[in-house]
C-alpha cells in the first residue's frame, strides 16, 4: 500500500523568505508520480508541481521547486520569495499502480507573514 507522510502540521515564513515543506512516502510501485497541491481557504485544490519518479531531475515551476530523493523516499517542496498569496494548506500526494488514485498526506498549513 502507498502511504504519504507530512510531519509538519503548521509552518510560518516571512514574506520574501524561503521555506521548505517536508514529505516522505512509501510505495511498492516501480513507476509512480508525486505531486504537491495547494488548497487556499477557497477550498480549490490547485496543482503546484509534479514529479515523475523515473526522472532524476528535480521539477521546478517558477518559485516552487522540489528536492526528490528517490532512495530516501523523500519529496520536499521549496518555496522561494514567499508571497502572501502562498498562504494555504499544502498537500503532498502520490499516484501509482493500476488504481490511479491519489494518496494524500495530512497537509501542512503554511502562513506567510507580512
Amino acid at each position, binding site marked *: 500500500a502507498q502511504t504519504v507522510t507530512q510531519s509538519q502540521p503548521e509552518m510560518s515564513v516571512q514574506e520574501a523568505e524561503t521555506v521548505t515543506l517536508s514529505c516522505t512516502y512509501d510505495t511498492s510501485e516501480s513507476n509512480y508520480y508525486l505531486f504537491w497541491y495547494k488548497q487556499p481557504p477557497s477550498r480549490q485544490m490547485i496543482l503546484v508541481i509534479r514529479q515523475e519518479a523515473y526522472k532524476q531531475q528535480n521539477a521546478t515551476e517558477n518559485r516552487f521547486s522540489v528536492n526528490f530523493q528517490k532512495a530516501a523516499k523523500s519529496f520536499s517542496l521549496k518555496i522561494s520569495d514567499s508571497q502572501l498569496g502562498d498562504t494555504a494548506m499544502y498537500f503532498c500526494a502520490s499516484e501509482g499502480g493500476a488504481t*490511479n488514485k491519489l494518496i494524500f498526506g495530512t497537509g501542512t498549513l503554511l502562513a506567510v507573514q507580512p
Partner: protein
Amino acid sequence: GAGVSQSPSNKVTEKGKDVELRCDPISGHTALYWYRQSLGQGLEFLIYFQGNSAPDKSGLPSDRFSAERTGGSVSTLTIQRTQQEDSAVYLCASSWRGSSDTQYFGPGTRLTVL
C-alpha cells in the same frame, strides 16, 4: 477553458435524508474521481471512472454511497440515509486519460448533516 465545476457549493441536510452531489469535469477528460475531505480522515479516495470501463469503487465507505457517470461526462455522487459522519467536503477531479495524468480539482461541495 472551463475547469471542473461542482454543485451545490454547500448542502445542509437532515440525518436520514438522501443527497445528490454533481460534478462536471473538464471537457475531453475521460477520467473522473471523487474524494472526501474530512477533519478526522483527511483526504480519501472514493471512486474512479475511466471511459467505459467499470468504475473502481474500492474507496466507497458503505453501501449508502453510490456514483454514476452519464455519457462519459457529468457524474453524480449519491449518499442515501445520510449520517452525521458523512459531513465533509466532497471533491471531484478529472484528468485526460487517468494513469499518470495530472488530476484537476473542482471547488468541492461542503456537506453538513444535522
